[in-house]
C-alpha cells in the first residue's frame, strides 16, 4: 500500500523516490503513440481504443510489448479516454474501473519488470468554462479513474494532453490522492508562436500551477511536431524544480491513400534529442505518429551521446 501523500499541504520538496531512481541514471525513455499502433492491428477508424482492453487485450498487449522491446523504460497504458465522462459517450461509463484495471494489467504483463508502467489519464473533452461539466463531476471522474489505476498497481499516473489548466489541476489533485507519483502535461499548440494551450496558458503558467498542485513531473505532449518542443522544454525547465517530461508528435499528418501518414522519420525525430536534453528534458518519448521505431531511434541517439 503506497504511503499516502498528505493532502492540502505544500508540494513535497523532496523528489518522489521512484522519480529520483529513474532520473538518476540519465534521461528516461518513455513510449510512443498507441492509437496508430492499435489501428495497425485492426482498430477501426473512429473506434474507441480503451474498449480494446476488454475485447482485444492481446493486441493491446502487443503494442505495450513492442515499446518495451524497442527500449522504453516507461510505458503508458491504453486508458487515455477511460474516464466515465468519455466512456459515457460510448455507453460504457459503468465499465470505467474495469477498463482502467485491465489497461494497467496488460501493460504490467508486457513490461514484465523491464519497464515501469505509468498509467494514462486524458482530458474529458468537456469545457468547464462552458458549463458542459461541473468541477465536482470532473473530480469524481478523475478520482474514480485514478483509484482504479492505482489499485491495479500502476507505478505512477500521467495526466496528459490537457488544454485547460483548471481541468488539469483537478486531475492532478485526484491523482495525488492515490499517493503515486504524478506526471502532469499539457498541449502547447495555440497562439501565433504555438506556445500556449488552446485556453491561452503559457508553459510558465502551467509549470507553476501544476507544481503547486503537487505534480512530481511537469511536461508537454502532443499538438505540434518535435521542433517546437525544444523551446517549450526550456521554458518549462526554467519555471519548475520538477523533472520535465516531453512527448512530441511526429509532425502533423497528411493523407496517403485515405490514411493519415506522419512525415517525420525516426531519424529526424531522434535528431532533436541533443537539443531536448540541453533544453532540460528528463523524460523523452513520442506522441501522435510515433512508433516503436522512433523509440529505438531515440535509444540509439542517447547511447551515441553517452561516454562508455
Amino acid at each position: 500500500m503506497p504511503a499516502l501523500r498528505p493532502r492540502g499541504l505544500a508540494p513535497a520538496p523532496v523528489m518522489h523516490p521512484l522519480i529520483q531512481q529513474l532520473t538518476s541514471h540519465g534521461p528516461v525513455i518513455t513510449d510512443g503513440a498507441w492509437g496508430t499502433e492499435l489501428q495497425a492491428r485492426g482498430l477501426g477508424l473512429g473506434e474507441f481504443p480503451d474498449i480494446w482492453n476488454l475485447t482485444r487485450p492481446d493486441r493491446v498487449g502487443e503494442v505495450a510489448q513492442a515499446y518495451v522491446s524497442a527500449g522504453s523504460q516507461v510505458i503508458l497504458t491504453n486508458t487515455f479516454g477511460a474516464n466515465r465522462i468519455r466512456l459515457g459517450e460510448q455507453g460504457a461509463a459503468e465499465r470505467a474501473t474495469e477498463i482502467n484495471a485491465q489497461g494497467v494489467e496488460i501493460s504490467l504483463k508486457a513490461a514484465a519488470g523491464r519497464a515501469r508502467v505509468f498509467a494514462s489519464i486524458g482530458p474529458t473533452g468537456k469545457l468547464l468554462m462552458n458549463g458542459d461539466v461541473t468541477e465536482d463531476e470532473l473530480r469524481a471522474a478523475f478520482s474514480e479513474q485514478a483509484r482504479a489505476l492505482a489499485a491495479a498497481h500502476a507505478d505512477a499516473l500521467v495526466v496528459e494532453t490537457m488544454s485547460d489548466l483548471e481541468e488539469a489541476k483537478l486531475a492532478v489533485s485526484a491523482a495525488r490522492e492515490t499517493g503515486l507519483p504524478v506526471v502532469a502535461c499539457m498541449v502547447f499548440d495555440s497562439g501565433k508562436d504555438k506556445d500556449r494551450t488552446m485556453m491561452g496558458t503559457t508553459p510558465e503558467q502551467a509549470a507553476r500551477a501544476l507544481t503547486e498542485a503537487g505534480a512530481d513531473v511537469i511536461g508537454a505532449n502532443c499538438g505540434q511536431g518535435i521542433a517546437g518542443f525544444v523551446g517549450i522544454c526550456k521554458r518549462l525547465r526554467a519555471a519548475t524544480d520538477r523533472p520535465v517530461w516531453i512527448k512530441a508528435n511526429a509532425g502533423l499528418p497528411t493523407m496517403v491513400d485515405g490514411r493519415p501518414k506522419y512525415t517525420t522519420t525516426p531519424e529526424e525525430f531522434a535528431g532533436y534529442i541533443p537539443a531536448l536534453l540541453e533544453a532540460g528534458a528528463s523524460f523523452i518519448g513520442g506522441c501522435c505518429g510515433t512508433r516503436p521505431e522512433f523509440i529505438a531511434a531515440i535509444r540509439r541517439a542517447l547511447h551515441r551521446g553517452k561516454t562508455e
Partner: protein
Amino acid sequence: MADLKKLYDSVVSGDAKATQALTREALAEGVDPLKLVNEHMVPAMDEVGRRFEANEYFVPELLISARAMKAALELIRPLLIARGDKPVGRVAIGTVKGDLHDIGKNLVASLLEGGGFEVIDLGVNVSPEKFIETVNSKQANIVAMSALLTTTMPSMKTTIDALKQAGVRDKVKVLIGGAPITQKYADEIGADGYSENAVGAVALAKKAVTAA
C-alpha cells in the same frame, strides 16, 4: 439614448448582461436590429477575432464574447425572421462520423452566429447523409466539418464524395478544421477552405458567401 459604442465594448469584453440590456434599450428606441448587428456587433466580433490573431485573446475570451453576442442575437433574431430578413449564409456544421469532439465545432458555430450566419448545428458523429439532408432541406450553402482525430479525418473525404454523388457539391462551399487538419489535407480532399482556428473560419465563411 442607448450608447451603441458601449454595446460594441460589451461584446468585446464579453459582458453578456450589459450586451443584452443595451440591445433591449436600443431596440425599444426603434434602432434597426440589422443595423445593430452589422454596424456594432459584427465589428465587435471582428475586433475579438483580431485580438485572437494577435495573441491577446484566447479561447476563453472568444467564448465569452460569443456568448455575449448570442445573448443579443436571441433578442434580435425573432425580429429579423418576422420581417423576412435573410442571414448572411446558412451553415450546416458538425463533427464528422466517428468523432465525438465538439469544443472546436461549438466555438466555430458560436462565432458564425456572431458573424450573422444562420447555423444548423448537427452535433457530433454526423454522417455524410445527414449533411446532405441538411443541405437539401435547409438550403445550407456552407458545409463546415470538424474532426479532432486522425482516425476520423477520412470521414471528411467521404462526406465530400457523398455530396458529389448526391449532385449537391457545387451548391455548397465545404470548410474544414480540427487539430490534425492541414491546408494540404484540405486541398487533397477537395475542400473549399481550411482554417487553423475559429476566427479564421468565420472569415472563410464570409468570403465563401460573397464569392458564390
